[in-house]
């Protein structure tokens, strides 16, 4: 893709976005990177893109309890939710944004928004604590969001076959499971390509089913 790369825009905005192409994105897609604490989400996003921190302040209003607007700001309690994101310029005008999801359990309300319109998700499984990724798998299964499982191979961790992991996670046979080292850019790329191919195959199946 040398002809494309020659379009490269020199970095003009030190430390900030350094778009590979002039003009910036005209279209954007997103992929989520999920998994338990310490599974390698930040590492994976960082290995394939320039990672940046992102935070949001969300209101914690108890379910069903109306927020009393007249009593002022003091009654509002917010919490900071931090996550990772990175941008990959795929071709002129097309950007892929990766979002490392914030912790499971506490921040489902953020997940819902993150997942809306997502191309798909990578669930990182750490074989030392496989159960940590169950909630992520459940989440994407329930919402019908295409996902792949990336088994992060930590040093010293027992090696598992892909099929063992699939069984342990009780995954549909169609869901790709890949072994990876989240620190390696090539592995990260491979996982993302597998996800998008999986999403494309699902699209194809859905289209044929409708025809």
């Amino acid at each position: 893709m040398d002809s494309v790369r020659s379009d490269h825009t020199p970095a003009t905005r030190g430390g900030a976005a350094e778009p590979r192409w002039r003009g910036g994105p005209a279209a954007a897609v997103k992929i989520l990177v999920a998994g338990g604490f310490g599974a390698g989400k930040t590492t994976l996003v960082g290995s394939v893109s320039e990672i940046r921190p992102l935070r949001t302040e969300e209101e914690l209003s108890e379910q069903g309890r109306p927020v009393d607007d007249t009593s002022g700001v003091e009654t509002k309690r917010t919490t900071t939710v931090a996550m990772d994101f990175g941008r990959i310029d795929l071709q002129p005008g097309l950007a892929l944004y990766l979002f490392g999801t914030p912790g499971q359990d506490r921040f489902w309300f953020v997940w819902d928004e993150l997942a809306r319109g997502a191309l798909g998700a990578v669930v990182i499984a750490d074989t030392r604590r496989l159960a940590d990724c169950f909630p992520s798998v459940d989440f994407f299964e329930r919402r019908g969001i295409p996902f792949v499982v990336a088994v992060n191979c930590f040093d010293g961790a027992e090696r598992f076959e892909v099929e063992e992991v699939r069984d342990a996670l009780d995954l549909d046979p169609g869901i790709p499971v890949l072994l990876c080292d989240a620190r390696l850019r090539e592995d990260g790329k491979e996982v993302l390509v597998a996800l998008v191919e999986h999403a494309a195959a699902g699209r194809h199946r859905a289209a044929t089913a409708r025809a």
Partner: protein
Amino acid sequence: MAESKVATDGPGVPAGREVPDGPELPPGAQESARAEQADPGEGPEVDLFRPRAQAEERWFDDEAGPVVRLYSMTGGRTRPVEEGLFDLISLITAARPGPDSGGVPAHGLTPEHQAILTWCRHEPLSVAELGSFTDLPVSVVRVLLGDLYDADLISVTRPVPLAELPDERLLRDVINGLRAL
């Protein structure tokens, strides 16, 4: 559990970190932002904001940081104008002032509004990037973007709708783009 560490995990915002006094501006943007502020031109007057709360009024939620400052930035508003308009990957571009508009009206624009406009003046940036670059929470950026949108100062490109059947060519482009990295 371990997830309570999430706020300090990776390059996230350290817990209890104070929000800096002004938003971060793109390198070299300071001067042009000032210049525009000095000369508001003939554009329509936009009354976006009530005065900011005094610094002494700030108080700190142990988890959330300086809440009052953030609320004063948004006038206490927390919801975007239109549901889904400011998705994390919606692309924002500062509207190009028309030949007769006399430039961007600076009245009523806070430094935070200015910073957002400056960041996305030359190319579209996602809502997520604007949050990260200005060092403001996305929730706050959304409210500020709502103001700018109402004042016709930005244009918004919503994300490609992928809900049911993402476009086959788009998926192919994504795959090829990833392979070429």
